[in-house]
């Protein structure tokens, strides 16, 4: 059990570093979502189910939606049709 | 059944919050403004009653929020110091709103004016809670409310400069909140309490037993750092000039006059109720605060000296004035803290007076804010000119004005301090000279004849002070003069309040 916990914690650090280093903003966001899910598992291991359910609903749910909407507004989502022409040129 | 006045702090906080919630569904900014002013009046009257009740009996009381006393439930605590500061905050906030009213209605789109007043009500609620709270985690929650509301009133003007300033302000503030929260976690881990009386007891026993010395040092450092970032102590002031210099008049006045002070009052409460001032001194925190305060006094003034933009100059002067407060705290003795609290009150009156006057002066030159173009503005709006003169002279330290009394008490405190005496006196002298070097030319500029704003195609116009502006400048100016002339009762209330903390 302890090993699993430590693996999860190492996973958190890896996610945090790669979210902060990733080039593509969408990748950053997806990694951050994984971070939230792992965090929610850690809350369960720390015997805090209230936090787990809140973190899952908020970190992986609402926060991600808000980030995605922001990325859409600022045209950072590659492959959406607005940026197609733009990408081909580069 | 306790006497009714003991319910007042709690009722005031909830009144302000519910007023904010109500205001959010109004459609008219005018009605929102009326509700805010009414709430401020009622809360001000209640605070005056509370001040009278506690100061006349020289007593304080704790008020359990619910039927569970400390250490289990949230608690409020009110004494003469808290009630007096609440009264000052209400007066200043109402005057700043009245003085900046015209600008608010010009700068903010009609559909969103009511939301500005929502922020004002919430700001009032959070300031009151930070004053009255006896629970350190409540302090954290209301610090966050204060941060969000303060950022919102910066960005309310909604132009490019204010949005950028808000972003910088938000990033720095959130950093400060994070540091405060982590120090709170450390504090909880070694004491197991969150309410100030029990925290004080267990920290005292830790000190006596010599336990957990290292975590204590770290957590005091982090807590002070977090609150120092939020209250713009040098060198964490970089966000302040943009935020205070670009927002609408009332926002600048309230941010400089009150929001910064809320955090410092919380810090003083923590110093006195969680630790006590001799323990803080033994951790050497006060020495750091003293040095940073002294640096802020000099650097803030130097920066202000180089600034040609009127509001940014006044904003930089806030950095220097915050330095005075931290200098007083950094002396690490009772007299220094009294001077610091007096400076909180004096600056709460003076700085909004300056901002409101500058706002009115610049409206005579088409809202141009550069000093160069404000030549003769005082002749075109006499009341604002007089207000600026009084405020500026108070900052310089002319006798019979509030700023002079602060310097007097700081100097008196410095003579009693351990090692800081010479430095403090020298810094005070230098800072006064520097203040004079930028306030006096500004005063001369606004009273000179002629005008320069035609050069950029703006026709100078005469502005007659409307009633709201007149009330604002007169009340704030009267406050500055009263604090300078009959300061003894104020100081005695402050000393009594600090002794009860």
């Amino acid at each position: 059990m302890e090993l699993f916990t430590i693996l999860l914690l190492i996973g958190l650090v890896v996610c945090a570093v790669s979210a902060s280093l990733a080039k593509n903003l969408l990748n950053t966001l997806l990694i951050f979502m994984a971070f939230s899910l792992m965090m929610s598992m850690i809350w369960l291991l720390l015997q805090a189910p209230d936090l787990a359910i809140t973190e899952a609903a908020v970190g992986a749910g609402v926060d991600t939606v808000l980030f995605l909407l922001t990325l859409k507004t600022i045209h950072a989502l590659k492959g959406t049709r607005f940026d197609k022409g733009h990408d081909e040129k580069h | 059944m306790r006497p009714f006045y003991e319910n007042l702090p709690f009722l005031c906080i909830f009144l302000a919050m519910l007023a904010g919630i109500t205001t959010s569904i109004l459609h008219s900014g005018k009605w929102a403004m009326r509700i805010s002013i009414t709430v401020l009046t009622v809360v001000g009257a209640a605070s005056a009653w509370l001040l009278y009740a506690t100061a006349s009996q020289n007593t304080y009381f704790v008020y359990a929020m619910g039927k569970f006393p400390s250490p289990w439930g949230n608690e409020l605590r009110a004494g003469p110091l808290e009630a007096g500061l609440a009264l000052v905050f209400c007066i200043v906030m109402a005057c700043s709103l009245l003085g900046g009213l015209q600008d608010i209605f010009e700068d903010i789109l009609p559909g969103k004016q009511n939301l500005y007043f929502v922020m004002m009500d919430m700001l009032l609620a959070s300031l009151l809670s930070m004053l009255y709270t006896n629970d350190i985690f409540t302090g954290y929650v209301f610090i966050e409310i204060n941060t969000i509301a303060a950022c919102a009133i910066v960005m309310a003007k909604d132009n490019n400069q204010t949005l950028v300033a808000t972003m910088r302000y938000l990033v720095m503030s959130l950093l400060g909140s994070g540091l405060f929260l982590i120090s709170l976690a450390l504090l909880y881990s070694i004491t197991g309490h969150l309410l100030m009386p029990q925290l004080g007891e267990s920290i005292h026993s830790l000190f006596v037993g010599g336990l957990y010395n290292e975590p204590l040092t770290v957590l005091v450092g982090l807590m002070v750092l977090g609150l120092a970032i939020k209250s713009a102590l040098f060198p964490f002031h970089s966000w302040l000039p943009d935020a205070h210099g670009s927002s609408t008049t009332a926002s600048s006045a309230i941010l400089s006059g009150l929001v910064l002070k809320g955090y410092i009052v919380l810090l003083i409460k923590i110093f006195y109720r969680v630790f006590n001032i001799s323990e803080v001194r033994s951790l050497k925190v006060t020495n750091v605060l003293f040095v940073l305060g002294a640096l802020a006094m000099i650097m803030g003034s130097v920066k202000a000296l180089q600034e040609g933009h009127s509001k940014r100059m006044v904003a930089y002067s806030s950095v220097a004035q915050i330095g005075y407060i931290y200098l007083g705290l950094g002396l690490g003795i009772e007299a220094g803290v009294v001077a610091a609290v007096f400076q909180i009150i004096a600056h709460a009156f003076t700085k909004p007076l300056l901002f409101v006057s500058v706002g009115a002066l610049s409206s005579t030159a088409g809202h141009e804010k550069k000093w160069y173009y404000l030549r003769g503005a005082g002749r075109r709006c006499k009341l604002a000119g007089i207000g600026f003169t009084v405020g500026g002279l108070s900052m310089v330290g002319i006798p019979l004005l509030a700023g002079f009394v602060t310097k007097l008490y700081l100097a008196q405190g410095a003579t009693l301090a351990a090692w800081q005496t010479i430095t403090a006196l020298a810094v005070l002298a230098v800072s006064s000279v520097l203040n004079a070097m930028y306030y006096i030319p500004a005063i001369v500029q606004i009273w000179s004849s002629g005008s320069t704003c035609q050069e950029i195609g703006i026709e100078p116009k005469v502005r007659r002070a409307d009633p709201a502006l007149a009330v604002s400048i007169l009340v704030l100016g009267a406050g500055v003069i009263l604090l300078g002339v009959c300061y003894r009762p104020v100081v005695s209330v402050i000393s009594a309040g600090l002794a009860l903390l």
Partner: protein
Amino acid sequence: MSNAIATWSGDYYQVFAIILFGIGFISLLLHKNLIKKIIGLNIMDSSVYLFLTSFGFIDGRVAPIVADPSVPVQMETYINPLPTGLVLTGIVVGVSVTAFSLALTQRLYKKYHTLNLDEIIILAKREEV
């Protein structure tokens, strides 16, 4: 030093929380990209919550939800519920702040068409002059 390592390996939750705090802190301060700043802020907040929650955990005890209320509750059965409650409050504050800063980011992008805060600050200064 070996003592220190032994203590750290016992307090691994706190050690990882602090490492995460460092990562979040540095991305909040050093990243120029606003979105990454906000993600850094979220990581920093989560790490502080992890730090705080770890003080409530006690080995071998269960979450403070009583299955059978008719039996008198023993303190030795449950972990400390207070840090969980505090963190629950903190998470809500975190979401609010995230929403606010993201809204601000959208507006800044619409005005300056970049997410680089340094560039934005310089462009704003140019405008002012």
